[in-house]
């Protein structure tokens, strides 16, 4: 099915149409390009259907055995994962682009941004449908540069500094990715996905990077690829580029947060058979994801700028995605990135409207000066308690005792249940903040949310997992590879449970007008944490300080050339 090659090319044609020609016809050309992006979406959807019914598509314009074609091996391998990603990217790309044509009408930079947007969709489509790691890497690097110019306002100093920081951080990931590729080729002699996975599984290689330390080839390769992935997906400690790039037009962010930033999750899924052979890296992914969730969430709470708030929220969500990969729930991570992509894309587009509106209307944003005293509703609180604490407990007991499923030995099942619980609790706790309305409506919403979350996780996510990874043994293999030591897993479950129960109690007592005596050290810890998150944990300052120190040392060592002014 060589016609599938047209799918990524259509946005490229659209980009060229927008970029070429005079300013007078720009709007007309921009509208024409919508059809190309629409056609790309249609083509992606058809490809998804084709792949789902007739299996993967492989097209190669190179000889995989030839050394000379190693550095520019253009080809396409489209399986279910690729087709799903292509559909997501082209759909989000088409929506965002169509919105931008109106949003950026008569904007000075419209031509640049619109053509770059269509070009980015082309690069993303090529990246997710690449036939080998090298082609993926080629488009991965182009994406780094595109992010730099997308986050650009040519004359605005802070924007330029932010864009430069973005590029520098992403290049760190690019270099790590390259090390992974070099190691893969050196150890296994191929960059073709299927052959590489086979060789890694069949012939384990051990490396000794330092005396006394031995690591497997799979671990070494996946470690560097993982670093590449988390740089692009703005995970701790490489997350600082994302807030720095927030000066770009809002539709750019819709595309960035809905499409581009998911590259890390895609990379890990694409190479899942290799990651599955390295429990160490999966555990590392879990830890990095967890830290990112906490850091991103805390920093988000302290922002007063709508775009920054959304930016830090994305960092937290990317942390979740990487954490899911670290738990071996690869398909769940893809499911998450799709859901997050659509959600964040729509929020950013809406945010663009709000910002536009606020610029025209001086009375916006409204400042709430008076608030009714909070009302206590027994029904609301009772429903919340039942749905978030009692029913989950009953379900756990039922699974364990009635269905006789040993929970402690089924971390995969526990992960799903746990995510259901956390997601529904998060939503229901948010609903308790709606005060002063008829409480039965809130209670009904809580129950609906609860059923919705269960439906999504147990039915939609499970079905999606079976679609992406049709072989249940493969899913089981990943979950087992990622299994944490029992004591650690139990500790995490218990700790998070305690946090949720404590939060419930705190909110409940506060709603009843009661006061809670908190030890002084907790109060002081709260203040410190507040200050830390206000200053974004000083991570950016630390990078800047290190950079300045490094340059000072270099200046002292290598000095200045004679005869040139500084």
């Amino acid at each position, binding site marked *: 099915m060589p016609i599938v090659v047209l799918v990524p090319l259509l946005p490229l044609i659209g980009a060229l149409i927008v970029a070429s020609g005079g300013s007078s016809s720009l709007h007309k050309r921009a509208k024409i390009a919508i059809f190309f992006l629409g056609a790309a979406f249609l083509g992606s959807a058809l490809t998804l259907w084709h792949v789902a019914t007739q299996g993967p598509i492989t097209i190669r314009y190179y000889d995989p055995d030839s050394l000379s074609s*190693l*550095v520019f091996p253009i080809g396409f391998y489209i399986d279910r994962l690729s087709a799903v990603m292509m559909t997501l990217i082209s759909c989000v790309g088409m929506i965002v682009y169509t919105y931008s044509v109106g949003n950026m009408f008569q904007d000075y930079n419209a031509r640049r941004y619109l053509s770059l947007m269509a070009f980015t969709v082309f690069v993303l489509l090529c990246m997710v449908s690449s036939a080998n790691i090298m082609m993926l890497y*080629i488009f991965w690097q182009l994406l780094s540069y595109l992010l730099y110019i997308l986050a650009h306002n040519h004359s605005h100093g802070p924007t330029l500094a932010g864009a*430069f920081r973005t*590029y520098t951080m992403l*290049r760190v990931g690019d270099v790590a990715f*390259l*090390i992974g590729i070099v190691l893969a080729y050196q150890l296994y002699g191929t960059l073709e996905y299927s052959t590489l996975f086979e060789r890694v599984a069949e012939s384990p290689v051990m490396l000794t990077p330092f005396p006394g330390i031995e690591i497997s080839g799979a671990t070494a390769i996946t470690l560097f690829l993982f670093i590449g992935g988390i740089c692009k997906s703005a995970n701790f400690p490489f997350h600082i580029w994302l807030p720095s790039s927030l000066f770009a037009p809002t539709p750019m962010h819709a595309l960035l947060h809905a499409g581009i930033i998911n590259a890390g999750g895609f990379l890990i899924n694409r190479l899942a058979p290799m990651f599955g052979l390295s429990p160490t890296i999966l555990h590392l992914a879990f830890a990095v994801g967890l830290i990112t969730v906490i850091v991103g969430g805390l920093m988000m709470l302290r922002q007063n700028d709508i775009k920054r708030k959304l930016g830090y929220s994305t960092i937290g969500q990317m942390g979740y995605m990487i954490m899911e990969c670290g738990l071996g729930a690869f398909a769940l991570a893809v499911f998450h990135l799709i859901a997050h992509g659509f959600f964040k894309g729509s929020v950013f587009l809406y945010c663009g409207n709000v910002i536009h509106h606020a610029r025209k209307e001086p009375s916006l944003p409204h400042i709430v000066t008076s608030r009714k005293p909070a009302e206590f509703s027994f029904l609301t609180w009772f429903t919340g308690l039942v749905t978030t604490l009692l029913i989950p407990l009953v379900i756990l007991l039922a699974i364990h005792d009635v269905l006789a499923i040993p929970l402690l030995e089924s971390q995969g099942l526990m992960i799903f249940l746990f995510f259901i619980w956390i997601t529904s609790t998060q939503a229901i706790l948010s609903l308790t903040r709606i005060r002063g309305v008829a409480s039965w409506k809130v209670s009904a919403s809580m129950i609906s949310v609860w059923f919705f979350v269960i439906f999504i996780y147990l039915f939609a996510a499970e079905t999606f997992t079976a679609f992406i990874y049709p072989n249940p043994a493969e899913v089981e293999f990943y979950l087992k590879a990622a299994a944490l030591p029992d004591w650690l897993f139990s500790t995490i479950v218990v700790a998070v449970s305690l946090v949720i129960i404590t939060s419930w109690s705190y909110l409940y007592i506060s709603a009843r007008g009661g006061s809670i005596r908190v030890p002084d050290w907790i109060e002081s810890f709260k203040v410190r944490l507040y200050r830390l998150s206000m200053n974004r944990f000083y991570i950016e300052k630390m990078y800047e300080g290190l950079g300045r120190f490094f340059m000072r040392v*270099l200046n002292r060592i*290598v000095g200045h050339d004679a005869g040139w002014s500084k």
Partner: protein
Amino acid sequence: MTFETNSLILTMVPLLGGLLGVTVWSQPIKLKMWLILVTILSLALAFALSDQLTTSVGGTLLLYLLPLAACVSLLVKLNSHDDQLSLLMTVLLLGLGLGALTSAGLTSQLFLTVIFGLNAYLLFKYRNPLWSSSWAGIGIFSLAAVGAGYSAGVDTSTALIISLLVSAVLLPLLPLQAGYVTAVTRLPGSLPSFLIFLLPVLGLNNLANLITDVPDDIAYSISIIALLSVVFGTAKALVQSRVPLILAYSSFAFFAILWWFLASSQTVTPQNVIYLVAVAFVATGLMVSWQVICSRYGDDVDMRTVHGLVWSMPQFAVLLTLVALAAMGMPPFGVFAGFVGMLLTTTFTTYIPLIFILAAWLAASWYIMSMVQKMLFGQKQLEIRRIELHRSEFASLLIVVLICVALGVLPSNITGI
């Protein structure tokens, strides 16, 4: 016709063309046009004689690219009062370079001797009391001229060492980098942009005949020196604020990476050649871009005062961005292809050198991007409305971009190696 006759024809065309150019010395525009024609004629001859000529490495690729690099350098509008001499010297050096590439043994060494001598003379002519480093360059080139001549007449082991040293002057390596650095930063007009291509190409050509004979312990020492050069070149490039110095030291670091690969494998592969010509051509492109800026803003202008070119010179901004992307090793340009090709085809006994090499690679993204960003973006210069890029300058930069893409995308058999 014999191989020697063809080599002679290819060498003599630019040399005679250059000498004939003296007749229109007082008319700089005519002289420039004439010399550009000579480089084009040399390129056409290289194509015509390609079946009967070859070089030590890279097949006929180097023979095509050398006249092209000279042509690219000549196409730029220059503003120095020494224009004529720099233009003429560019063409003469092209002839000598072609001679060194297509000949072997004593003849090749003689050509190299003349090239070194000319470089020393030019550095002497353009010396400045403030530029003490020019004397280091003059000294290194003079010694290299003596070494190149001497190595042709001594026994094998001594000749090998001297030839290695001569190669280290051409393809810069610590501690002999001063000749290269001063030549590409101190000479005027079109010379730096051509020399930044010519010297390394001749260095690799000279090295190709030696590297297989180098004993293991010397090869190991070279690889250590190469790593030191990578670190030194990168560190120097990082702290510079002047464009010519950034380009000189960054290209020095990139060439030192090549030295490491050559010393490790003790052979010259097609990937090495692609990498070398790509780096050298990109460096030529960046140097040409700098000449374009200097022709508008004056010589030795501080890059911090040149900002907002994206508004005043949009066409130039796009071309410079593409050349800079190539220099940072982005696909689909030749530097990426050559570098990745070398990484994949080299067997690493230890991964420690890889750390240094990739750190240098990463640093290049930092300082090149920083340099380009300072010039292209930033506050718009309101007093400058729009500066048009001259057609010949546009052609020059476009050739650089196209060659870089061709080196990155086209398979090795099309590039002639």
